[in-house]
Every structure is written in C-alpha cells, then in structure tokens.
C-alpha cells in the first residue's frame, strides 16, 4: 500500500512539471556545427610573377623624338611615364612634352612619334589633320586611355556629376585607323590581379609590340576593337566587358592599325609604379619604346625646317653665284634661323658630297649644280620664259622660285632655283622665316612666289627688285623694295 502511495505521490509531483515542460518544449533540439570562415587562412593576394627589371644591356641606340601631349587636360602626371621614359632614353631617344597646340604642329615636323595619354580636352580639326598627316608620313601614334582616369566634374547648381571619359576625345582621332575604344572596363571575377578589374592578358596578336610577352596585367582597362587592324591583347573567356557582362573575343586591351603605325591601349596604369613590374608589363613597356622609336618617317619638304638629319648643313652657292653683301646678309639670317632648330650652317666652296646640303642656283645651271637638279627632271629651256616642272607644268621663270628636296641615306638635299641672284636672295630670306606658307608644295618639289613675273622679267639680269621676307609680305617685292635690293642696284 505504501509503495502504491509513493508512486502516486511521485506521479502527482511530476505530472504538472512534465505537462508544463512538454507543453512548451515538445521536442529535443540538437544544434548543427556552425562553420565560419577561416579568417586566419586569408591572405592579401599578391601578383603571381614579377619582372622587377627588364635588363637589356644589348639594346641598340636608335634615337628619335617622342612627343608627349600634355595640353589636352591629360589625366596623368609626368612622373608616371618614368618607366617609358627610361626605356626610350635607353634607346637613345627622348621624350618632349607638348604644352600648346602650336608646338604640336611645329614639332610633328621632326618627331618620330606622338604619345597621347588620357586626354580630356577635344582635339581641334587642325590638330587632327596634323596628326593624320604625320602618320601618313610614317610617324607613329600611341594612345593610352584609362577607365579610371576620366575627368569628373560636379555641376555647381544641380550637384550632378558630369563624367567625361577620355575615349570621347581620342575616338575621333582613332576613327581613321579603324580603332575604337569602348566606354566600359574589362573585368574578370575568376582570375585577376588582386581585384576583379585588374585583368590578365595571355593571348596576343602577332606584332613587335607583343614580342616576348606571356602575361600582361592591366588595371582598369577599356576594351578596344579594331575593324581593319588587329587586337593585340586578348583576355580569357572569363574576361567580361562591364557594359555587356559578356566576353567578346573581338575586344581586347590594345589594338593596332592596319598600317602598324597607330596603337591604342585601354589602360595607362600598367605603365606606372608599382604595376610596371608586374608580370610582363616591363617587357611590354620596352616594346612600346621600340615601337615609338621605330617609325620610318620620311622627311618631306612640308616639314621644313625639320628636314635635316645631320648637325651640319653645307650651303653651297653654285659656281656662278657671287657672295655679294646681300647674299652674305641672307646667309647670316639663315644661320640665325637654323641655330634655333639646332642646325649648324657651313658655307661650302665645293659641291658637297655627304651630309645635309642646301644648293643655290639660278635656272642657268652650271655643271656643278646639274647633278643635284637632274633627278627632278626639270626642263629648263634658255629660250623659254617657263620651266617645265613635273607635276606643275610650265612655271614662269621670273617671279617664281623652285625648291627641290631629296632625301638620302648620307643626308638630305634642298636645292633653291630662281631666275636671278636677286630672286635667290628673296627666296633665301623667305625660307629663313621658316614658313613656306606662300609656296605650293607637292611631294618633293615646291614652287614659291617671290614677285611679279612681268616686272621681274623686265628687270631680269639688270636690276634688282625688292626682296621681301616671306613672313612679312604677300610676295610683292616690287611694291615694297628693301634696302638690300636698292643697294644692289
């Protein structure tokens, strides 16, 4: 009996407890293991390979001038091109910075290549024309854009951010060469250089620019495509454009024009420290230096006075030309002008054979001058009042000067021909102004107006009409005779 009561008592004690417990907690909870990231195993990703320095002890010195555009609100600092500058200087070349439009037009006459980095201000039609002409002559153009360097301005009134990507500025320049840069950036989530927007390129187009490359890393690059040329740097299948979120095998990080003289890159950061030493970026930079100095630009009359390849210019008046005071005065003016463009003028008493030459003669050619004129196939008839010039037809002898230009391996030659010695001085004065603006230039022959044919022909051989420097008048020396001309008369 007592045992039964004990059970009843125990049950009475437990039932309310169990009832309440199971009322609230009907089941048994078992917690799974909670996995969290292994933070201690996470490390800062570093570049997989580095070319700290690209030793090139056997690099040949080719020389040359690379112009660097710095007046189109270019989004870079001069120190950022240090690695390229070193590579160019190692090859005997030099970088010259352009700070205004006039220096662009002037310096393109002698430069080997033009370097444009992330510009924000538009190119004028004159500038585009000058660059196009430069490339047609064999000059080279390298354009660097950068997806991280577009100009951003905040509208004062609305607070809106106005974005001016550099591609808007360079695409008109590149359009003639079948290259277009997209307003996007390339990214790769799967394999990248420390960040999704830092992409590797491991497939390359065949060109000297890609010689020796196995892997290149770009840091925020636009994609570039080319209709007529070729894409040089091609990304992996997981390299996507930010605009399409898809891979386009026709787009890459750089492209070259069909003629091989124009190259465009979607990134500039890869050339700056410390990224210039990542992967094969250093090799690419040296290849770019080779490209910039590798132009086969042909000197032309249009590039005067930057047409001389030697430090000395030998000026040879034909044997019939007398060194009159007027001519000496013209030579002095020419010498001063040439000094300004780093050319040393030397008077030659015999016809020079080597080096750069300036030959002066009247249309009455002497034997010593004939070899310089023959290659141009002029028909000089003493009886005629005209000279037959290939490409021009009959050119009046009086009042016109003819400039002939020949480029050679041993030096370049300019020949000045006029009817009289007085006109020769006038022509010499004109070119000493550095401007052939009143001359018609066609290939390697130029015709310059230096006076009126009627008045000049009347005075041929007897007197001297006015000589007016090219830059100062419209070519009517009779109307404004100079003291030099008066004196000789």
């Amino acid at each position, binding site marked *: 009996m007592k045992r039964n*009561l*004990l059970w*009843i*008592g*125990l*049950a*009475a*004690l*437990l*039932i*309310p*407890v169990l*009832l*309440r*417990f199971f*009322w*609230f*907690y*009907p*089941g*048994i*909870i078992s*917690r799974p*293991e*909670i*996995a*969290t*990231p*292994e*933070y201690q195993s*996470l*490390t*800062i*990703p*570093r570049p997989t390979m580095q070319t700290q320095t690209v030793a090139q002890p056997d690099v040949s010195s080719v020389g040359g001038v690379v112009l660097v555009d710095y007046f189109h609100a270019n989004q870079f600092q001069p120190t950022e091109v240090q690695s390229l500058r070193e590579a160019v200087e190692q090859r005997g070349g030099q970088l010259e910075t352009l700070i205004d439009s006039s220096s662009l037009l002037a310096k393109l006459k002698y430069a080997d290549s033009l370097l444009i980095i992330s510009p924000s201000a538009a190119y004028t039609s004159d500038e585009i024309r000058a660059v196009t002409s430069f490339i047609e002559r064999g000059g080279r153009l390298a354009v660097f854009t950068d997806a991280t360097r577009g100009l951003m301005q905040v509208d004062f009134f609305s*607070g*809106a*951010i*106005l*974005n001016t990507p550099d591609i808007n500025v360079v695409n008109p320049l590149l359009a003639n060469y079948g290259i277009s840069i997209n307003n996007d950036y390339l990214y790769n*989530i*799967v394999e990248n250089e*420390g*960040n*999704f927007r830092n992409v590797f390129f491991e497939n390359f187009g065949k060109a000297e620019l890609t010689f020796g490359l196995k892997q290149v890393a770009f840091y925020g690059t636009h994609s570039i495509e080319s209709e007529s040329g070729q894409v040089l740097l091609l990304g992996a299948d*997981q390299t996507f454009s930010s605009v399409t*979120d898809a891979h386009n095998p026709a787009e890459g990080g750089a492209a070259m024009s069909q003629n091989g003289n124009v190259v465009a890159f979607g990134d500039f950061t890869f050339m700056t420290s*410390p*990224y210039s030493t990542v992967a094969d970026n250093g090799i690419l930079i040296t290849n770019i230096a080779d490209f910039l100095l590798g132009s086969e630009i042909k000197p032309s009359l249009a590039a005067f006075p930057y047409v001389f390849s030697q430090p000395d210019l030998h000026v040879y008046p034909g044997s019939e030309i007398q060194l009159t005071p007027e001519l000496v005065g013209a030579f002095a003016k020419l010498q001063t002008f040439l000094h300004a463009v780093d050319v040393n003028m030397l008077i030659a008493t015999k016809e020079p054979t080597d080096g750069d030459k300036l030959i002066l003669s009247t249309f009455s050619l002497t034997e010593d001058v004939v070899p310089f004129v023959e290659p141009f196939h002029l028909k000089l008839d003493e009886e005629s009042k005209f000279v037959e010039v290939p490409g021009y037809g009959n050119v009046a002898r009086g009042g016109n000067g003819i400039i002939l230009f020949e480029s050679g391996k041993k030096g370049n030659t300019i020949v000045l021909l006029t009817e009289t010695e007085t006109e020769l001085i006038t022509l010499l004065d004109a070119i000493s102004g550095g401007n052939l603006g009143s001359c018609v230039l066609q290939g390697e022959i130029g015709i310059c107006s230096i006076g009126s044919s009627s008045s000049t022909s009347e005075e041929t051989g007897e007197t001297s009409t006015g000589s007016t420097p090219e830059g100062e008048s419209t070519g009517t020396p009779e109307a404004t005779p100079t003291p030099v001309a008066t004196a000789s008369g």
Partner: protein
Amino acid sequence: MNLSSLKWEQIRTWLLWLVFPLLTGVLIASFIPRPVIGLIRLEDAIYNFTARDMIKQIVYAYDHPEVRAVVLAINSPGGTVVDTEAVYMELARLRTKKPVVTVINGMAASGGYYLSANSDYIYAKPTSLVGNVGVIGYLPQTPLILEEVISTGPYKLWGSARDVEMRQIDMIKLGFFQAVTLGRGDRLKMESELLLTGQIWPGTEALRYGLIDDLGTETDAFAKAAELARVEHYKTGDLYNLSALESSSSTFFLQSPEGITLPYPNKPGIYLLYIPELPTQ
C-alpha cells in the same frame, strides 16, 4: 478507530501523497519558463553603435535559457567591415546553442546579407533587396607630406599603400564569400562568379538563387524559429527591451550641408556596404 477518524486518515493520506505532491509539482512546474523567441532588429547601417547594441542582445539571448531562438529582422545596407564581422562572430556563437532565423524587410545588402547568411533560415519579402556580396573602399591618398603634420613613416598618415589597400579589399571579399557559401551550403544555387559580381536581387530572384529560403513575414519567422527550437506556446520578446539597452546613436552616413542624409559613409574606409548608384550623366 471510528469511522470519522478513518475518513480523516484517508483524507490525510490523499493530501499527503496526492494533493501535496501535486501542488509541489505545480509549484515546481511554474519555474519552467515559457519559451521566448527573441527579436533583434537592425534598421540602420552596421557601425560601432548598432553593432554594440546587437552584440548585447545576442549575448543576452545566449545567456538566458528561456530565449530559445532569435529572429533577426534586418533592413540594412551593411556597414563597416570590422563591426559586421564582430556581430557575425557573436551570431555564430549563439547559433551553437540556439537557432537564428532572419527576416529581411527592406534590404539585407552587403554586410546586412553577411549577417543574414549566418542564420538557420532566411525569409524576405518579394521585393526586398538581397545580396550585394562584396567590399567597397576608398583608396588612401598618395603619400605626401604636410608642413604642419609630422609623422614617422610614409604611411603613418594614411595607413597603408594604395596597392596594399586594393588587395586587402579582395582578401576581405574572400571572407565574405566564405561566410555566404558556408552559411547557405547546398541551398545556394548560383555560380560563385555571379555571386561575386556584387549584384543585388529582389526577394523573388534571391529565392530562386538560394540566397534566401522562403518569402515570408516576421510572423513566419517567429513560427520557423519556434519550429527549429522545438518549442510551442512561446512568447516573443524584443531583446532590445529585455536587455535593457539605452538609446544611443551616432551618424554613420554623410550629411549634406542642407541636412540631407546621403548614402555614403561619413569617413573613408573599407565597407561592406551597398551604395546606390551615383547620379552620373
């Protein structure tokens, strides 16, 4: 023994062996607490103040046995890395004992989703914004010297080199990625490449991709939490009140001169933060 004394003896026996134990049992049973499903709300960015408050509530839930599960109601664009990680780690500790169910209200973006991923079940509204897995940061200045500031090294002033900062951001991203993949496990139905694009999805898409478990409300979240905790007839309790937190706050977001709160943090740094698109033209 007369009849009356016999009856009394019986009554006394029943009182002793039935009523008294029963009353004692009832008394003891009354000490069995009614289960509480705690609620923690996050309706701001994750920064030092909000993180501190959340951690206090999480610790309260951990320490108090009657709190059998926690519902995390989130409407946050994320915040600082370190504060997000701090809350994340406290949540992980809590989850070893008690289930946590997240309900996404407005958005659980970036750091907000980082925390959400560390829960047993995730609800969202059909148009809640979910995801934005990734890290965002402002690179420090290029080292420079100032006349009036003397320091002992090139990075004393700015903390680290720009390149190191850039790479550090990617390292933090890996931690975030691991947190999501570990938290979601087999339920995640998207490629890592897509996840790491940093996209933000509406709730319906997030459900399709396995970023969340179901569409639902806070009521659903409480029910689910109770189910996971194996409790019934529970009561809900706001852990902010239960843990006796006092109101404290500071400004995380930048304020315009006109007093408008902008979506950008008020100081540079690295963030697990969703920042709406810039008004570019």
